[in-house]
Each structure stands twice: as C-alpha cells, then as structure tokens.
C-alpha cells in the first residue's frame, strides 16, 4: 500500500517537473563552482579511513597525492608531489623524490617524513585502506622499516616482492598517496577507546591539513561542504575560488536548482530527471565510466546456488542490453566481467557482455544442473536504486523457466552484513576496486587466502561467496608478479573468460557517473576515479 502510494506520488511529481519549461539561468557566483549532491555518506575526512565515493572525491581534490594522473584518464600516471621516482633493480624498492619548496597551508614544509608518516598511519589505524596496502606486503609491525624518509625530500618504500611497477605505483595515486601535514596534526593526537594512539584520526574527522589545490574550510554534516582555493598552489591556481557543495538529497529538487541556475552541477539525478536534462536546450550531461560493478553473488555453500549450471542459468536470465537502454540508461553499462571497462587488463568491449536473455539456454543449464522444473531460492537486496529494478527483472524472467526467486529487501548495510556472515543464498550488491587494474578485483573476487569459515576473511568477496580454487589463486598471483605488461593483459583475459563461466558472481552492470551541468560552467574534466574540481572553468 505504502509502496503503491510512493510510486504514485513519485510519478505525479516527476510528471509535474517534466512539464516545466523554465529557461535555464545562471545565478551562481562567477568564481565559485556550486554542486547539488547528496552528502549524507560523509562520515569522516581522514584519508586513512575514507572509502566511499563522495568523501574520496572531496578529499582527493583537497589533498595532492605522491602520484597524479590525467584529469580525464586515471590510467595515465603523472608526477604529483613526487616529481620523479626510481625503482631498484630487483624491483622491490621504490624511491620517491618529492618536489622542493612545497608548503602546507599552515606554512610547514612538505617533507618526506610527512609522507612516510601518512602512509604508516594508514597501516596503524587498520581501516579498509590498510588492507589495500597490505596486499602489497606492507605490514603494520614493520611499516617503519618498509616506509622511510631517507632525507627531507626522499621517501623510500620497500616491498617483499617485485610487483609490476604501474600496478604498485597506482596505489599512491589515490588516498593512500596523500601527504598530510604531520606538524599541524600532532597537537590534536588523541587516544582510541582501546588506549592506543589515534594518530589524529579523531581530529581529521572534520579537518584536513595537507597541500592541494583547495582547502577544506567547512563541512557541516548533511548540509554543506565548502572548499577554498589554495593561493600559490604548485600546479597553478585553479580558476574557481570556491567549491560549494550543497546537500540536496532529492533528485527533483536538484534538477529544479540546476534549471533555475542556482547550482552549476547536479550529481544525483534519477533516470527521469536525467532524461529531462538531456532534452533541455541549455543543460548538458557529462558522463564517465566509474569502476564500480553491480553484481549478484551466489553462495557456493548453498546446495542450489553452489551449482555452476544454476549460476549459468541465472546469467542467461537478465537482459543486460535491454536494461542498459531503459532502467540503467543514465546509470550504467552492461558488463559481465570482474575487470571493469577502462581497467588495465579488462576484456575488449565486444567480449565484455557475452550473456543476455535466453530462456532456452537457461533451461538447458537447469536440466544439466538437475533442476529441470526449477527451484525456489531467496535473493537479498538493498532498497535503493537500482537494486529493486534489477532483481524484479530477474525474478520475472526466472519465473518463466520455473525458478521462483523470493526477494527480501533490506537496508543496504544489512545486505553487506549478511554477505560478510555468509548468511545468504543470492545477494546483489556493488563493489568499487581500489585502482584501475584487473588485479584490484582479481585479488578480492577470485583470490581466497583461506576458505575455512572460521578464517573470517571477510574482506575477500571470494571468501564471502565460499569460492576457492587453488589454480585460480595461483593465476591471480602469477599475473600480479608478471612484469611484462603484454603478457599480464593476456593472463587477465584468460582469467576473465574462465571466471565469468565458473565464478560465484553474476556481473551485470558497470556504473556511469553523470554530471548534469548548467550553462554557466564551460568546462570540467572527470576520470573513472573522480571529478577534478581544479579543471572547472566558468
């Protein structure tokens, strides 16, 4: 009842909004970029702790990293705070040479000691980002020897194995490569409830101290984020003096603000509002493929979902291309492989979507699986877009071949909890890899260090799904040790072709980031990782 009413309301509201023909205007300050964005997800600004999309983008626009990349191609690594780097002959020691004369906004010089401390504290604090560094053999207990400042401008990082350089370096082009102003943060050191030092974690919840094109001047939870230009930034002053992010949770409200010219960019438009902007003469949509994938996980420990043919049958029950043209039009692209498009080693686009809606193939696999008349299975999903749309589509197609899918809707965090507890048969969720390389997902989706339930390897999606294949474990590690890029690509291609048939995941879509842009904004660039605020021109 409540649902029907909500749909009715949303539909009539959308209709009314779409009837609007107001001319798009420009009413934002000339030297400020104003964005409407749902910023509820921001919990903290600490680079060691952040993980979700909104905060990652803001913090990486405030703080420079050791390594930078092209604003519209995050695969092209460029010098950042480190103007150059050398790799030892054995491939295990990386020496970063920091730019000279750099100063934090506090006036403190940017030193290699700052850089070393910033990386160390990620390991000491142990949030999800520590896991990303840990994959390369960095260990909290020995991190002080592994990451050292040789002098004021030279940082040395030593890892136990010779990883492919581009792979390891890309880690420092993200939040793990941010250099914080230790001297400015030190007075705010506190202790955690377990008595251990917090390395500034509590203070960094709502503050940032680092060098970058902008400074964080205000964050009011669920209200505003304001960034102020950093005069004399080493890369040159960005054109916009201020970045104002207004918390506007409603899509229709964002669109009205954009059309009235009260914001320059709307970030969270739903399908209907995006279509409205698309049709509008003065407004534009700018899109970029993000690395996030939406996928269904089958629990291999479940007697039904654990059957490879059952999973194949499910793969043939989704009309990926059809959804791409309709429900997902402004949200995602069809993609069936663990390595997202744009990542190093991803399959070519023509090979990325081998599946589609084919009831005969699904029936054949069901017969092979020993379920010619279908079965009943439960699928858990979050309530936000696009989960209900995708699962209802699957449910409808599955019914045609005798599979009864029972949908169970819950808060998204609950879906995550249930999969971490292995308490599910089918679950749909999303995952964003840490860097644009097939390895990023291979190491979490395929590689499983210890399949025993009591091992609690919850950060590995493979462990959550109960997937363990020693030969695939070896393939993942072999590709990660392969230093010849051409060879590495071939290895990932082979891995993808096999995993999309045998694996526990039914990959469905890759996310598109959509910026709805008003007439005042002439240019802004974005890559798979983030929108670059310093490229905004009005």
């Amino acid at each position, binding site marked *: 009842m409540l649902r029907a009413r909500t749909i009715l309301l949303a539909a009539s509201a959308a209709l009314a909004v779409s009837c609007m023909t107001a001319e798009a205007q420009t009413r934002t*300050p000339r030297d400020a970029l104003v964005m409407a964005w749902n910023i*509820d997800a921001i919990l903290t600004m600490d680079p060691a702790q952040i993980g979700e999309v909104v905060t990652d983008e803001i913090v990486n626009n405030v703080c420079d990293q050791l390594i930078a990349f092209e604003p519209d191609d995050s695969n092209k690594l460029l010098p950042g705070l480190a103007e150059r780097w050398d790799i030892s002959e054995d491939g295990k020691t990386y020496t970063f040479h920091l730019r000279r004369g750099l100063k934090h906004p506090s006036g403190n010089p940017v030193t290699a000691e700052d850089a070393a401390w910033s990386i160390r504290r990620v390991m000491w604090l142990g949030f999800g980002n520590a896991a990303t560094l840990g994959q390369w053999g960095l260990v909290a207990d020995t991190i002080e020897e592994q990451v050292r400042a040789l002098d004021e401008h030279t940082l040395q990082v030593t890892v136990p194995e010779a990883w492919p350089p581009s792979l390891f370096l890309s880690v420092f082009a993200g939040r793990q490569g941010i250099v914080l102003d230790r001297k400015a943060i030190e007075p705010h050191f506190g202790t955690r409830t377990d008595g251990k030092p917090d390395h500034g974690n509590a203070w960094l919840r709502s503050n940032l101290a680092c060098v970058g094109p902008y400074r964080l*001047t205000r964050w009011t939870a669920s209200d505003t984020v304001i960034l102020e230009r950093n005069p004399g930034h080493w890369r040159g002053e960005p054109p916009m003096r201020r970045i104002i992010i207004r918390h506007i*949770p409603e899509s229709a409200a964002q669109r009205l603000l954009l059309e009235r010219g009260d914001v320059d960019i709307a970030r969270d438009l739903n399908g209907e509002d995006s279509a409205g902007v698309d049709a509008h003469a003065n407004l534009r949509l700018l899109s970029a493929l993000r690395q996030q994938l939406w996928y269904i996980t089958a629990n291999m420990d479940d007697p039904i979902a654990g059957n490879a043919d059952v999973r194949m049958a499910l793969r043939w029950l989704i009309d990926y291309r059809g959804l791409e043209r309709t429900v997902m039009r402004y949200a995602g692209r069809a993609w069936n492989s663990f390595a997202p498009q744009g990542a190093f080693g991803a399959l070519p686009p023509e090979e990325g979507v081998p599946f589609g809606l084919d009831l005969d193939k699904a029936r054949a696999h069901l017969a092979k699986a020993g379920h010619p008349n279908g079965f009943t299975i439960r699928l858990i999903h979050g309530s936000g877009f696009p989960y209900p749309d995708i699962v209802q589509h699957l449910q409808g197609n599955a019914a045609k071949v005798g599979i009864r899918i029972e949908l169970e809707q819950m808060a998204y965090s609950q879906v995550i909890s249930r999969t971490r507890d292995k308490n599910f048969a089918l679950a749909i969720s999303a995952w964003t890899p840490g860097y644009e390389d097939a390895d990023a997902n291979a190491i979490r989706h395929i590689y499983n260090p210890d399949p025993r339930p009591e091992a609690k390897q919850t950060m590995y999606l493979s462990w959550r799904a109960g997937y363990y294949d020693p030969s695939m474990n070896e393939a993942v590690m072999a590709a990660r040790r392969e230093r010849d890029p051409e060879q590495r690509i071939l290895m990932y291609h082979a891995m993808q072709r096999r995993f999309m048939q045998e694996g526990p995941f039914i990959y469905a879509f890759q996310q598109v980031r959509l910026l709805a842009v008003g007439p005042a904004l002439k240019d802004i660039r974005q890559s798979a990782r983030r929108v670059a605020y310093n490229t905004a021109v009005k």
Partner: protein
Amino acid sequence: MRRLAGEVFRQASAVGISLFGLLAITFFIGRMLPLDPVIAVIGDDAPQSTYDMVYRELGLDRPLWEQFAIYVGKVLQGDFGVALNTSNRVADDLLRVFPATVELATVSIIIGVGLGIPFGVIAAVHRGKMIDHIVRVVGLIGYSAPNFWLGLMGLVVFYAMLGWVGGPGRVSVFYIDMIEPRTGFLLIDSLLENEPDVFWSAVEHIILPASILGYSSTAYIARMTRSFMLEQLSQEYVITARVKGLSRARVVWRHAFPNIMVQLVTVIALAYAFLLEGAVLTETVFAWPGFGRYLTLGLLAGDMNVVLACTLIVGLTFIVLNLISDILYRLLDPRTR
C-alpha cells in the same frame, strides 16, 4: 507551600519515569532491529580485525542491559555519545538541527493559527453555505495531500516557474557560510549580525516549506475550530445574546470564541508538537537540515545514540508543550483559578 513542593516533586518524577521508560523501550527495540552500525563506520572492504575492533569500541560486545546502563549513566552526565553518521557529538548535532526545525515549525504554526482559526470560525458561522464547503474542501486537501508532493509542486510553481520564493536550502548560495550561528535560528542570527540581505534570503527560503507545513496545520486547526465553534453557537447564551440585539460579530468573537480557547490551546499545542518532531519528507524535498531527517538517517544507519537522543527530545517536547498548555488553561479559564 508544602503542597506546592509535593506537586512539583510528583510532576518531576512522573516526567522522569516517562522519559526513562521511553529510553528503555527505544533502546531495546532498536537493538533488536537487524541493522549493523559497524558497517556504516568501516565500510565494506575492511578486514575482520577492524570490524571486531570497532564492534568493541561501540560497546556492542557487552550484554544489552550493561550497554543500556552505561548509556543511561552517560546521558545523566549530559553525554549523548557520538553520531556515526556525522562523527560529531550528538549534542552538537542537535544544537544545529533542532533550531532549524524549531524555526520552520514556528513559522508554520504561526501561519496555521493565523489562517486556521479565522477559517474555522467563518465556516462555523456560515454553516452549510458555500463558504463552509470551500473551507472544508480546501482543508481536506491540506489534510490529506502528502507534504512531499505539495512541496515539490510548490517548488515547481513558486520557485521554478514564478521565481517568487527561494529554492531548496535555508539560504541563497551567495550567503552560505556568512552567518556564524549564535542561536541557530537563521532569521534571528542574521538580524543580530545586521545582515538584512541574509535575513531576506532566509525569509524567501523559509516561506514555502513553512506554508506547506502550515497548510496542513491550517486544515487541522480550522476543522477543530469549526466543530468547537458550532457547539458553542448552539448554546442558549448565544441565542440570548443575539435576542438582546448584539451584533453577530460581537457575539461570535466576544462571547463564543473565548469559550473555545481552552480547547484550541490543546489543538494548537498538538499541531506544534507534531511539527517539532520534524517532517522528514518536507525536510528532504527542501534540503532543510532539520531534526526529522537527522533522526531518520540515524534510524536507517542503526545509530542508537542518535535515535535515543532524538526520542528524548521528542518526549521532552511533548512534556513541555503539555505543561505550557496546562498553564494557559489556568490563565484562560477563570474556573481553574
């Protein structure tokens, strides 16, 4: 004197027991909800060791009754804990979001009372005539149309098409960050800092959401006023007054109306309390950083610190408004003096 002290003591302990009961029920229901606050803090890709550490940090490994006892102990010292959603102390967050809601609710209730009472009285006086029907239909729409929808329609017409009012948010983008919050009420703070432009921008922004919320209060208040008034108008003293030759306006406003004021106070207090709880959908549409949205987000994240503190505030609001209406009864009704 002793009787008064006894009365105060009885009232205070009743309030204390109600609030404690409210806390206990909310706490235990909240803990039974299948929500995992740890995931909200650490994200999806953290290792199990981090999960376990934060689980302990949040005190979730202790028995329920112990968690509750610790919580109540802290609340008694004025510590509501930290909100997972904002990383701020809940008390600080409340000082920010509650004034925003109070400001909106107060303007709304002024609109609601200012329109609702005259409409109700007029409808009662002209019972069964055209004007009565119009008031009833307009009231019915206000009472039954969802605020979420009305809000969007209002934005489309008055903000986007006509440009008469400000859009979502509390103030225009030009004035964001200009006013240092002192009272938390933007209308007051902007005047205190002598910033008339900010004040007018705030007025432009509050007028539409307040009118939408005020509309539903208007509908409620008008309906109640009408029925109270009808009851009075059928009394013998009204007929007597009319027979004595008093004008209809005088009979209605000087004789009948004072007699419904006591009942109206209850109605208005209830409508105001309802507004103070925060209207989550209206706050969402208008991007109003208020109490209702704060509570709802806390609830969705399983953030019990937020939910419990907000429940206490709502409980206190009702109790305070109840006390105020009690006092008003005594002032308005000579029989209780």
